[in-house]
């Protein structure tokens, strides 16, 4: 078992078993079971040496140690919120972790219930009636929203309006999701960080399938007139898609109250230290129920008339509808959704709202500190902020970013003279050190 080089340590056959099994099948050896023409056979080697667990753990640790130990003040859609230990321990239970899509609901009630609870929490947070049980990330959720808009809209509009300021990843993924359609993506201008509603009113017309806005925006500003956008979209029969995240939802205006038809975003809950795993939120109105991408968990009854959970409305999905499915998604991010639900339940309403309020005050505190420094102006936009904000710099932002890295901090340089800082409870303790470093490089 501890040996390396003798085959797979995870294939448990003894030689005697292998022989007995080959006898039962009626073949001489294992290779006789492969029906592969000689011509295409691979007789080379991968050149991958097997290593022991201990060696691999050390090897990977040594690699990770080569990453600089920086304190990151990075955000722009990817947020580092502290995840309580309980989440790791319970989500790691192998019955959860090593299960799969709930094709046999009678032996998957536990995961189904947890996903149902996740959906319900999103329904509460967004005010919309339908939440699916995960997309890959916020960017693909946005792409899915746009394809939904094109399918669901009765008028044949093909323009998709997105904010001029948007994370590159989201825009690029959206472009790919629309590559197979005749939709065109147009950017509407921003005014001081927020959607320029007048410009938007001028460009919004009946040939628009969807308007997308974010709250908070990619620069962390909080939108001030979302219901106006909702009304405008409604007037023209366009879908209003709102991008946000799981923490901001608990504090900012409820999407349903500003007229949002679809809410998407990166969850920001349940991820763990800087993630490395995504979780795309997707919620919408009941009207679009049959157009929803991905899996949905519903409640039904079992043969004893007891409450039971099951995947439902599967005729929307690829395994049944094939090329006419609402999406191509199969494997999703269910386990991250489980973690997000655990995280939210652990926080409770009080904890979640408190966390969101800290996102406002921490960002404000850091901006105030930085604004006192000569050569920088913070925040660059005269707006309320959530978690992050931009900073105008006299010096080159790229140079400052690099020098801050030498001082031990990772920040965004997003334009010639704009830096961006994101602060959460995980780095709020280092605000003083960061401000001191900015003072050095400003």
């Amino acid at each position, binding site marked *: 078992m501890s040996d390396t080089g003798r085959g797979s340590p995870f294939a448990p056959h003894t030689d005697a078993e292998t022989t007995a099994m080959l006898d039962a099948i009626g073949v001489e050896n294992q290779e006789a079971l492969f029906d592969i023409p000689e011509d295409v056979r691979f007789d080379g080697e991968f050149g991958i040496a097997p290593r022991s667990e201990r060696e691999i753990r050390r090897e990977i640790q040594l690699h990770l140690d080569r990453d600089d130990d920086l304190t990151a003040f990075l955000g722009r859609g990817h947020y580092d919120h502290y995840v309580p230990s309980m989440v790791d*321990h*319970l989500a790691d239970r192998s019955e959860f972790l090593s299960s799969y899509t709930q094709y046999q609901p009678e032996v998957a009630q536990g995961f189904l219930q947890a996903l149902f609870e996740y959906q319900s929490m999103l329904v509460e947070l967004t005010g919309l009636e339908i939440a699916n049980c995960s997309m890959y990330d916020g960017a693909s959720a946005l792409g899915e929203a746009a394809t939904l808009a094109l399918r669901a809209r009765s008028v044949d509009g093909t323009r998709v309006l997105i904010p001029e300021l948007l994370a590159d990843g989201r825009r690029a993924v959206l472009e790919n999701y629309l590559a197979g359609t005749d939709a065109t993506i147009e950017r509407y201008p921003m005014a001081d960080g927020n959607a320029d509603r007048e410009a938007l009113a001028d460009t919004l017309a009946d040939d628009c399938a969807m308007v997308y806005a974010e709250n908070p925006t990619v620069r962390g500003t909080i939108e001030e007139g979302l219901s106006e956008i909702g009304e405008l979209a409604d007037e023209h029969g366009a879908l209003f898609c709102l991008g946000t995240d799981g923490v901001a939802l608990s504090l900012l205006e409820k999407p349903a109250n500003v007229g949002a038809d679809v809410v998407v975003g990166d969850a920001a809950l349940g991820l763990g230290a800087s993630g490395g795993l995504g979780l795309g939120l997707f919620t919408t109105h009941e009207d679009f129920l049959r157009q929803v991408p991905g899996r949905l968990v519903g409640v039904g009854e079992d043969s004893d008339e007891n409450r039971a959970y099951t995947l439902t409305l599967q005729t929307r999905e690829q395994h049944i509808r094939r090329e006419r499915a609402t999406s191509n998604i199969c494997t999703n991010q269910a386990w991250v959704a489980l973690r997000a639900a655990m995280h939210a339940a652990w926080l409770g309403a009080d904890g979640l709202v408190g966390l969101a309020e800290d996102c406002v005050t921490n960002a404000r505190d850091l901006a105030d500190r930085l604004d006192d420094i000569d050569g920088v102006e913070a925040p660059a936009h005269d707006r309320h902020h959530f978690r992050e904000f931009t900073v105008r710099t006299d010096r080159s932002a790229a140079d400052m970013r690099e020098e801050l890295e030498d001082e031990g901090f*990772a920040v965004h340089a997003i334009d010639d003279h704009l830096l961006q800082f994101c602060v959460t409870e995980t780095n709020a303790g280092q605000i003083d050190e960061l401000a001191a470093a900015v003072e050095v490089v400003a």
Partner: protein
Amino acid sequence: MRYDQATWTREDGDENADTYEPLLAEKRSTEVAVDESPLPDDLTRESVALPDPSEPELARHYTRLSQMNYGVESGPFPLGSCTMKYNPKFTEDVAALPGAGTHPARSAASTQGTLELRHHLQTYLARIGGMHSVTLQPPAGAAGEFTGILVAKAYHEEHGNDRNEIIVPESAHGTNFASAALAGYEVVSLPSAEDGRVDVDALEAAVSDDTAALMLTNPNTLGLFERDIEEIAEIVHGAGGLLYYDGANLNALLGRVRPGDMGFDVMHYNVHKTFATPHGGGGPGAGPVGVVEELAPYLPSPQIEERDGEYERVEPEHTIGKVHGFAGNWLVLLKTYAYIARLGDSGLTDTSAKAVLNANYLASQIDYEIPFSPFHHEFVASADRDAADVAKRMLDYGVHPPTTKWPEIVDEALMTEPTEAETQAALDQLARAFNNAADDSDEALETAPERTAAGRIDQADAARNPRLSWQALDN
């Protein structure tokens, strides 16, 4: 020995008689007013109502839910096409190392260790698939298909080819059709030949100037190796199309034949299948995409490249852009790296040997017709009665059943993939479950399962009256 899959059994007169475990919201929920926030009132919501059980209560809630869930460690899990193999524990520890997940916007200069690991994994996967370059960005198999088809599309566009069709065998996975359609293609469905493989004549007739690509998995969903693969490649290439490999079934072939050697131009690897990363109750997985040299300039951005010992993020010349908002499911990929390193050449080769051995042994022990052979890591048996009923009955015998009713080419299909991780004894247990279910009366099948956390669930009824949140439960 009898194995009940419901650890928690209902008793008459239970307080929560109609639920095994109350919903969080039914335990304790608090509504909090948002009225003293640091923001002006017109920017905030009025209140939030969420469950807020204490940590001990939550621990019990989720432990209990986990006990009502069947995973790979609960017992055999021969869900065909899904490769539900054992997930080694140490890979979880590797992914949990401090510093394993850095923010995707960190500079290349400050994350050389992580980038080197990504580069190593790209290299490993390229060698295993016989490909030139690999992107790690796609977050699942279907996302890999979408990426690969976009790469093919960009390639054709760059060469001035206007091609609007993707050919997909009828027996392919639903995502193949859906991914091709998402990329804007007409899907041409290719019927199978009598022997369950690609009908070469039909393919010949189907290809044309409009053919952008043929999507194929090999062994196919019946477990059969497409023996005519070289001819198939010739036909597709001859018509100017590309050959796409759906890597879902790679577990059958490791070390024996590589997609690149069979003539495939672009492929995805399904790491939650072949490389043992946990399926997580539905995900996350990862679907890296490999391409031949000619297609490398079209890969998503960024690619990780090495120059003089430095690792850089590079934008390929004709990149299709991005298919994930960040850097894909990196922690899943890290587990993939650890698994491949643990196995090495000999372990990977042995994996396929044992996966194929197990499928063939199990098939030899069950009293079911298996219309198509010789199969490899999976076989498709015919239930000869309602496959869904047989599956429900198998639950009562303490195992997870196979994939049912797909591929449709087999009547009442039971698509069975035991994986290399099962012992002979576990396979015998599985065979007994198959055979007992075959011997059981129609009535026993129709009323099954009876030893599970829930009885048979009426899915049609749940879909007719959709209740998708606890808020909808009172309706």
